[in-house]
Structure formats: C-alpha cells, structure tokens
C-alpha cells in the first residue's frame, strides 16, 4: 500500500497545506510519496523531500503544468497513479479543483474535506456546514481524498527522500491560463495563522473595516478575516471570507468583531481553540460559541483593546 500526496506549491515553495496533507497520508499507512508537478519547481520538490515521513518525491516539470490548470494537473496525476492505494490532495481551491477530476477518470468516489482517518478505508468528514460529522467507508480500490488542513497537524521537516523525475504531460489544448490577480498581503496566510481578527457587517464600510480591524491585527500579528456579509458589502476582498463557502480556519485565537454568527460563518471557524466575540447585540448567536464574549460597541471596544495590549 502506497499513498500519493499531491503537493500544492507556487513553483518556488511548498504551500503549508501540503504538510497537513502528508500527516493525513501517514495516518492512512504505507509509504508516502509526494508529487510535485509544475514548471521550474525543483526548489519545491527539494522542500517536499525534506518533509519527515516522505519516502519519495516525484517531480514532473513541464510548461503545461506551470499554472496548475485542472486538465493538465489531473492528467499528470493519472499518469503516475498506477500503483497507489490512496491519492490525497489538500482541500484548497486547487485540490478541490483537481481531485474530483482524477476520481472520475479512475471511476472511484472522491471523499471531500476529511478531518480524520479512522482506518485506511474509513474517514470522517463534516456535512451540512459542519452541523454533522459523517463517517464514510469506501469500497473503491483507490481512495481519492481531499484533506482539511485544520483537521491535521503539519508534518515536521527533517526527512531526506529521494527526488525522482517523471515525464510531464502535454497541455490538453482545451484550456489556457490568462492571468492572475493576487491580493497583496504581508500578513500571515489566513488558513495558517495562529491568530485571526475577523470583521463583519457591523463595521459599516471598507474604510471603517481597515481603520478598526487593521490596528488590532497588527498588534496581535494576526491575519484578517471577514464574514460573508462584510465581503458581499465590499468591506473586504473575497479571499478573506471565512465560512462554509470561504476558508475553513482553526487558529489558536479567533476574534470576531461585529459578526452575528450565522451557521455558514460558524462552519468556517468553530474549531478555533479560543473564540472571542465583540458584539453589541446580546442575542447574537456568536456568543453561543465564544469562550469570551464582550457585549460592547466595537467602535469603542476594539480601539480600547488595541491600547490595552
């Protein structure tokens, strides 16, 4: 039994979610191999070889793989998939894009967003926005899984796996990459941050959002998140959204400012270690999951908090 992990990387370095996925792969049992598919991604392949527990790194280098297009990446995974019992992807935008494509080509079910490996064929995953946890068993020969990063610790480094070059696939010709617009951000990455300060609709405008939330995040060295209401209203960019349809986070400390706590938002943050809610509505559902609730106007409480830290 051998397990294949599809590394997520930007051709220069590995994304942190890869490390959590390796931990899940080790829990499945057997040898763990990592596939690094990209263009000029030798550095990422080297980094993958240093993850503790990884037995071998497959490195595919080709122009078709540069931008992680689903058609090419899925074809590359299928080209090497022959002898693997499990194929694991991080449950990120990229992993979710490609994993079902691979599973369908192999004619097997895919299991999304696993949070626990119960046995080599049995996994736990949340359904209904995290309001229920299903334990599912796969009867398929190959298990194709996406791994929720917050469900597994990051694997340590210090390994010394061999890197083996594999032939890269050609482009499908049916899709092409046009461009990318990445939000500039020198803060910790949302899904990997230890502390997250999140703002909701109560902030009222994007100016207020920046004015109130940013100093607190700076002071705590935190990433900034937002509720869907705040994102829809244009107070914060889409990729900061925390919730069922945005990012799933589980930091040490989650500070929710002016967020009511709808089911869909809670689905994205209720596994945080400590939750602080600042809201002036005593009935807000967020208080039912908050370890520490402060019933106050955030426009006075948050600046006060910044001063007190």
């Amino acid at each position, binding site marked *: 039994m051998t397990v294949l992990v599809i590394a997520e990387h930007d051709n220069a370095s590995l994304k942190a979610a890869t490390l959590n996925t390796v931990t899940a792969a080790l829990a499945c049992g057997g040898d763990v191999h990592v596939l690094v598919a990209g263009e000029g991604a030798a550095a990422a392949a080297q980094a993958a070889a240093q993850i503790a527990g990884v037995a071998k790194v497959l490195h595919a280098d080709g122009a078709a793989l540069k931008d992680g297009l689903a058609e090419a990446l899925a074809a590359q995974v299928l080209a090497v998939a022959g002898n693997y019992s499990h194929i694991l992807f991080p449950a990120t935008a990229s992993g979710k894009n490609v994993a*079902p494509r691979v599973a369908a080509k192999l004619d097997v079910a895919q299991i999304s967003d696993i949070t626990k490996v119960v046995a080599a064929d049995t996994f736990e995953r949340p359904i209904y926005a995290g309001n229920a946890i299903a334990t599912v068993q796969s009867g398929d020969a190959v298990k194709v899984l996406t791994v929720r990063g917050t469900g597994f610790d990051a694997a340590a480094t210090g390994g010394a796996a061999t890197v083996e070059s594999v032939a890269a696939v050609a482009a499908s010709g049916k*899709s092409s990459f046009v461009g990318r617009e990445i939000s500039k951000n020198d803060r910790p990455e949302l*899904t990997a941050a230890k502390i997250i300060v999140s703002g909701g609709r109560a902030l009222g405008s994007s100016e207020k959002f920046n004015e109130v939330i940013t100093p607190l995040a700076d002071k705590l060295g935190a990433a900034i998140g937002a509720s*869907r209401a705040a994102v829809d209203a244009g107070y914060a960019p889409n990729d900061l959204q925390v919730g069922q349809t945005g990012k799933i986070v589980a930091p040490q400390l989650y500070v929710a400012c002016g967020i009511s706590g709808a089911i869909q938002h809670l689905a994205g943050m209720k596994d945080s270690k400590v939750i602080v809610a600042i809201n002036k509505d005593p009935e807000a559902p967020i208080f039912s999951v908050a370890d520490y609730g402060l019933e106050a106007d955030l426009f006075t409480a948050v600046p006060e908090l910044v001063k007190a830290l």
Partner: protein
Amino acid sequence: MKVLVAVKRVVDYNVKVRVNSDNTGVDIANVKMSMNPFDEIAVEEAVRLKEKGLVTEIVAVSCGVDKCQETLRTAMAIGADRGILVETDAELQPLAVAKLLKAVVDKEQPSLIILGKQAIDDDANQVGQMLAALGDLPQATFASKVELAADKASVTREVDGGLETVALALPAVVTTDLRLNEPRYVTLPNIMKAKKKPLETVKPADLGVDVAPRLKTLKVAEPAKRGAGVKVPDVATLVAKLKNEAKVI
C-alpha cells in the same frame, strides 16, 4: 447556443439540521427544502447570458426524487426554458450524479454546462469537475465572472489569495461561486408561466447509468460541542483572561 444547468433540491440554508436519534443521517422529514443557493446563481447566470443574446435555450436538470420537480419549476420561473428530471429514490452520490448528467449532456449537446460549486448538504464540491472529466471537457470552477464568445469562454475564478482567469474551448463546464451574480426573485406571473413549460422525466436505467453508491455512511454524529463560554464586562478583563487564563496572547 444551448446551456444546461444542474440544480439540486437541498435543505434550506437557514435550517439548522439535527442528527437523527439512530445516528444514520440528519433529520430532514418536515424540513423546508429549496434550491441549492449556488445552483440559483447558476440558473441566474444562464438567464443573463440568454438576455444578452448569447444563449438561445436553457435546459435545467435535476436528479433525485419526484419532488425535485418543484426545484425545476423554480429554475423555469427564473428563466429556464424546460426541465429534465432524472427520477430515482436511490441515494445519489456525486459520481452517480456526474454520470447521469454526462448521459443528459450526450443527448442534449449543450455548449456550456453551469453547476453550483457545491451543494450545501453534502458539501462535496465534486459534480462539476467529475462531469468535466467524464465528458473530457475543460472546466472552470468557482467562477466569479463568465464571458462568452462563439467558441470559447473566459472565466474568472476565485482561488486562494485572489482571482485567476482561464480561457476554455466550448463545450465546457463552469461551476459558480457566490460572487458571480445576485439571483433574481421569482415573480408570481413567472411562477405561473413556469407551470406550462415542458418537464420531461427519465429514469437512470433509461440513461444506462448504474447509480449504486460507492461510499457507505457508517455513522452520522453531532460535532463535538464547545464548552460554555463566559461574558466579560470590559476590555481590561478580556485582555487579562486572554493572557492569564487562555494564554493565547
């Protein structure tokens, strides 16, 4: 050109579901059902493309029990021209749905297939990608903008960290993200009109698809409950608690 949209009947997003007492699933008897929110966005996008004159016909498809007809009528009230129900009482998993849709696509030959990015009940986020794979079609998931030309689509996708744009040769599969559009409210006259639109019913066997589930659900449980928290009277107490009690700052 013809567009196919796939719609799913799910527990309404405002309902807080409960796990049933024998831990085999969630209790959905007598719970309000509606169209999956991402699918409403998919139908809306198809209708907008039609209003722009880029699309001539919109076919809505749903797979599942007889009651999915209501979901298809809703899609037709938003603006779909006709509906196809693949009727079955069997438990449908994403791979089976993708195969059923593939069979419908083979028959209907649409230029574009639009689906929601995920259903809010199983939270799988798989069907669109699987359909694309089975049909050997290019895919653009998590779309926040779709531009259509005669033989290609340019789609802006929401990815971690920002946006990216891809160009796809048609026919292609697109799955919608929340930001793609704001679905319109259906009006009473349109609901009445939708009742007259054609709705065809087929069975999985007619399409030659085996829908047997591949995954067995062993158990469905409540998530671990969080311990009750405390309310603090002021900022100073909050800071003290975070420093000394929770030790997180």
